[in-house]
């Protein structure tokens, strides 16, 4: 029996049928590697998934530092999103930074019974009094939708009353099947109310947006450092270390770079539709990944000097890390890894691991869709279900004033055909035969796969980190980087390599088994006989 069968076989028939669809024995199946994704987790299954609120407020909105974000609901949801996600943001002159604060309406029973709008309005008034923000976000949590608070009306009224921007997000936790719904909701509102409003002067024609980069552990800063070194102007980052002002100007770039496809592809597409700016799937994780990405971007901008500078920077950066990378590779070569995380990283990190001689034998996403697994070519074949239909999809029209093309249309079409832009191929194409791709990997499967595949490292999140480690397998968090980072770009690759190496070589692993477990009690001649 195959490993997959072994794992699945322990399920009841209903669960078996469901979970079977989420597992792929790569290139070793009759199903053309098709996978079920972005569908409901079965109740009772110990999933690692979060909710819509987490995807909206936690992932996409959280990093926007100058928006005062009021979570409308009972206290927990705001509390958990307070300072824990490591989307770093620098305090800059003239830009507010509320990242150290948690704002909530802390709804109480009467608010649930009689409605919470009044309290929300008062909370906004108090926030304006105390903080004088230029932007307020309102994020609703589960009960808000059910009791029918109209947060959008409240937001509109607040805009009028205080002369500020106020955007509401109906991101109740029960929407969709994972964080993914929340990304979409956040994308929609930012597209509606933010992008396109700015009129900042762009100095370089090599102007890019970085989309789906939340600056976890400073990743965005490393990416930006490299791009700036080559000569790019970063117009906006969605949304790591970003301000509303940055986001407002996204329509002025000439290319959108998409790092995390899942969380931001809606905006990437809509920006193109409305403003004519194509997007390119990039990957700044891994040395080779970064290099390839840099070359692709240069190819798009198609400028001799830029292309030359790109190579100079690549060569220089590689020179600076080559010794370290070689050292760490010597320590890690031949190790195996399993990765279960997010909606893009489970793919990206395979490149970095490959740089270090580590092979990935199992990978899966927590909230990816089929396109993150199989590539965007499957998009036409994905059937919307009840859960996905509930999430609003908006359509946008070209903006007559602001629509602009950096390349002539035929050039763009050519690049599209080459899949250089507007395309993402998904994880499957980079996975070796006989490895495993598992969607929404749950606790039971984690335990079983770890037992059976015995990877040297399990990359995951805090909830299953210690499950792996209790069973003697190093686990590193790829959501939070275990509070290290950055892991992106050139310097980040070294950080990552160092962190994994130290985990593998930590002497304490050798003490897991008590020595008396090996020796019989009655050995020896000394003692009080």
């Amino acid at each position, binding site marked *: 029996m195959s490993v997959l069968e072994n794992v699945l076989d322990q*399920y009841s028939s209903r669960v078996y049928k469901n979970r079977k669809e989420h597992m792929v024995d790569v290139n070793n199946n009759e199903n053309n590697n098709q996978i079920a994704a972005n569908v409901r987790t079965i109740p009772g299954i110990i999933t690692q998934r979060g909710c819509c609120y987490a995807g909206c407020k936690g992932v996409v909105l959280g990093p926007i530092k100058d928006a005062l974000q009021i979570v409308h609901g009972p206290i927990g949801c705001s509390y958990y999103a307070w300072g824990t996600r490591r989307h770093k943001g620098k305090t800059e002159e003239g830009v507010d930074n509320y990242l150290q604060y948690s704002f909530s309406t802390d709804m109480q029973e009467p608010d649930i019974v009689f409605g919470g709008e009044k309290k929300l309005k008062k909370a906004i008034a108090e926030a304006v009094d105390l903080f004088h923000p230029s932007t307020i976000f309102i994020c609703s949590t589960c009960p808000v939708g059910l009791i029918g608070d109209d947060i959008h009306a409240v937001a509109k009224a607040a805009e009028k009353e205080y002369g500020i921007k106020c955007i509401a997000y109906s991101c109740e936790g029960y929407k969709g099947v994972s964080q993914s719904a929340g990304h979409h909701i956040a994308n929609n509102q930012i597209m509606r109310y933010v992008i396109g409003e700015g009129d900042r002067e762009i100095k370089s024609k090599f102007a890019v947006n970085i989309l789906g980069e939340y600056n976890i552990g400073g990743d965005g800063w490393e990416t930006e450092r490299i791009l700036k070194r080559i000569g790019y102007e970063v117009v906006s980052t969605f949304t790591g270390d970003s301000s509303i002002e940055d986001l407002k100007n996204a329509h002025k770039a000439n290319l959108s770079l998409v790092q995390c496809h899942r969380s931001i592809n809606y905006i990437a597409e809509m920006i193109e539709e409305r403003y004519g700016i194509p997007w390119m799937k990039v990957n700044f994780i891994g040395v080779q990944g970064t290099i390839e990405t840099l070359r692709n971007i240069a190819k798009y901008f198609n400028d001799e000097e830029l292309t030359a500078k790109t190579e100079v920077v690549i060569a220089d950066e590689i020179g600076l890390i080559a010794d370290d990378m070689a050292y760490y590779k010597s320590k890690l070569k031949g190790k195996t890894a399993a990765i279960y995380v997010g909606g893009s990283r489970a793919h990206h990190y395979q490149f970095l691991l490959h740089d270090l001689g580590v092979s990935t034998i199992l990978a899966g996403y927590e909230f990816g869709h089929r396109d993150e697994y199989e590539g965007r070519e499957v998009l036409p074949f994905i059937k919307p279900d009840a859960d996905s239909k509930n999430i609003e999809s908006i359509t946008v029209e070209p903006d007559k004033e602001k629509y602009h093309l950096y390349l002539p249309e035929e050039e763009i079409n050519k690049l599209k055909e080459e899949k250089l832009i507007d395309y993402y191929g998904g994880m499957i194409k980079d996975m070796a035969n006989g490895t495993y791709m598992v969607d929404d990997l749950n606790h039971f499967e984690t335990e079983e796969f770890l037992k059976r595949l015995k990877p040297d490292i399990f990359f995951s999140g805090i909830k299953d980190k210690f499950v792996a480690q209790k069973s003697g397998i190093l686990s590193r968090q790829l959501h939070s980087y275990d509070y290290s980072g950055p892991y992106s770009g050139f310097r980040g690759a070294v950080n990552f390599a160092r962190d994994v190496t130290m985990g593998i070589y930590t002497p304490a692993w050798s003490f897991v088994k008590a020595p008396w477990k090996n020796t019989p009690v009655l050995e020896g001649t000394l003692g009080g006989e």
Partner: protein
Amino acid sequence: MLDYTKKEKYDRTALRVNPAKTCQPVGAMYAALGVHECMPHSHGSQGCCAFHRMFLTRHFKDPAMASTSSFTEGASVFGGGSNLKTAAKNIFDIYNPKIIAVHTTCLSETIGDDLNAFIQDIDIPEGKYMVHTNTPSYKGSHITGFSNMVASFISYLSVSSGNKNGKAVLMPGFVNPGDMRELKRLATALGVSYTMLPDTSGVLDSPMTGKFEMYPKGGTTVEEIIALGNSELTLAFGKFASEAGAETLKKKCGVPYNLLPIPIGISRTDEYIIALQAFSKTEVPYDIEEERGQLVDILIDIHPYTYNKKVAIFGDPDTVLGITEFVLEMGMIPKYVLTGTPGDAFVSAAEALFTKFGVDGCIAKAGGDLYELHQWIKEDGIDLIIGGTHGKHIARAEDIPFIRAGFPIIDRYIHSYMPLVGYKGGMRLAEMITNALMDRQDRDALEEDFEMVM
């Protein structure tokens, strides 16, 4: 750091800024983890379960296993009954717990799911159990949720057979495994036979063995919970976290209870020892008396470094009250005492302590937040902050020494293994406090005032 916090007083009634509490379900989850072979189950959106597991794991650095009903929009409209039914089947099938302990969420509470009815409708396998508690997130705090879960275990399971078993029930309240171990050690030392509920020791401070155990050795067994009805007496620690459980056991099975404060510091540990002694009618063993005497000795020795030092204490109500009394015993002034959990009993208990020790100008507040605490500190400074991780920004902004005690501590390690309760816990807390103050003295000393002997 926290640049927008201004000292000027401002009355907020709607906006919560930097809370000092979280919501009920996580407390229920923690309590349920203290039952052996129990699967805590979150009846709501799967994000709740994810957040709570993440949060507990960050504090304990150990797996916090729990399942969820994974509500979708449909369930939110039509009710979560079928989600729970499916969940129960799958949980028993896949994870094979002895018992599932369901807690609700603001979602299932708002839609009015009738958990009693749902559970009665579920086909629970022979020898297995399923209980629930209501934990609406919009009432109380995580402490309330903890308290509710404990009470529900009892009301579902405990039975009085009419034959007393000679045991005491220890309800430790929302404390760390290290505290629970210390409470048990003291009970054993006094010759008291007991059942502790809940008991997360051995669960959330479990050893590395090379093998993950879904249900580690620790936790109160279901059999023990059932037999609670035959106990002689409950010693319940902390009004906020344990009174409901003790009251439930009294009402259901007639077990009387003694509501004790969490035994942090000398007087409160004395109270516990005396209660144990009253129960077992044993002499207090010399070892325990020695520990006590050592702690008294220490407090006298260190008084020049602690006396009249002003401290802000925040966190969970029972714990904060314990630390407050202990710092008063150390001659310190608990200038600001704050919990995010609502409850006038907290304020009156704190004020009773201020009176008992004759200190003036101290403020106690329940249902407060860290924004307000920070405002107070800006208005009138202090020498030390004691609380969970979330105080670290204030400590940095105001350059005040900070020690981590209570829940949650998500930026340090090992704390959960170590007690704050008992005389031993007092020594630890006294050392942390004194070191923090002395380190600061050393840091701030002019070179000519830098002391070799202190």
